[in-house]
């Protein structure tokens, strides 16, 4: 076991865990931030996506020992950012969610996409969101919501 000081959603947290523990389980089990979901455990589905220093990161495959001083943002904290809020609003507006299990990961990836590419093409969306699977196949609504969030950002700028 080892102690790690993590910055999660702007707050400092200390956890005492095995260094090999994936970040996902530190968030869910130690910090009780259960909005981030376990899907596959091998970074193949995107349900566990969080931001680490702004980069969409698959928390299920990143041991906590490799996080260092980088800041973590989860679905619980992403709404405090205007872009994150815009994406969440668009998700509600387009009624994207069906079962909802994958959607926190979808939103975290969509926010990262729009941060890097504020006016994404369909190809950009396909490439950036291609690693986030949705068994309810809400992909069409996800695409619409990303376009809507993109318009909201432009309108606000």
């Amino acid at each position, binding site marked *: 076991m080892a102690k790690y000081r993590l910055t999660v959603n702007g707050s400092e947290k200390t956890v005492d865990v095995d260094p*090999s523990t994936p970040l996902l389980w530190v968030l869910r089990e130690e910090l009780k931030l259960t909005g981030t979901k376990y899907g596959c455990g091998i970074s193949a589905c995107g349900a566990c996506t969080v931001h680490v220093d702004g*980069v*969409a990161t698959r928390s299920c*495959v990143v041991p906590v020992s*490799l996080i260092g001083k980088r800041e973590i943002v989860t679905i619980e904290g992403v709404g405090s950012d205007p872009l994150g809020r815009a994406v969440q609003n668009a998700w509600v507006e387009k009624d994207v969610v069906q079962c909802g299990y994958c959607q926190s990961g979808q939103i975290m*990836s969509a926010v990262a996409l*729009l941060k*890097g590419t504020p006016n994404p093409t369909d190809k950009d969306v396909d490439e950036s969101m291609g*690693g986030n699977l949705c068994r309810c196949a809400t992909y069409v609504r996800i695409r619409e919501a990303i376009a809507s969030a993109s318009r909201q950002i432009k309108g606000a700028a």
Partner: protein
Amino acid sequence: MLSSIRLLTPVFVLALFAMTISLAAKPDRVNTAAGLAAWDQVYAVLVSPRCINCHTATNYPQQGDDRHRHFANVVRGPEGFGVPGLNCISCHQESNADSTGVPGGENWHLAPLSMQWQDVNDRPMSSAAVCRAVTDRSKNEDMDGPALLKHHAEADLVLWAWNPGRRPDGTMRTLPPISHQEFVAATRAWVEAGTPCPKGR
């Protein structure tokens, strides 16, 4: 007698000249042959999966010893670092994550398309073609022989090939066919021979 000596003198001079040329040329030929032999060793490493999986000609990396397409729809992106929302570092951290089986190293990314060592059908290019690409300074980030040697000896992602970590099932990833020390020695011999490339396509 004097006339025959006069007649023979040009012949003698020519013979001496030819011998000089031959003696001077021999070490070069030996050097080139040794350099090409050293290149063969370098090439064997470059086309091993630990290296060539990220030297693709396509818009995606490969993985595994069978060099299959990287899973999860991972794409190259404009700079070889993936795309926003799905960057290489979305999973690959600065070191191997043996508890989860995800390899990692500093600045994890794909080699630029100018350094592709396979064709668009994922077949490794010939030794001559890879050698031409590696020695073409318009393609290799302007590296001359000594810079190539330094790259092979010190670059983080090159070194990673000999420390590739564990697969998700816990077994060790396959290493290149020779040790890093042997790879550097072969590169040095090739560079000292003037980075000769095999002839052919």
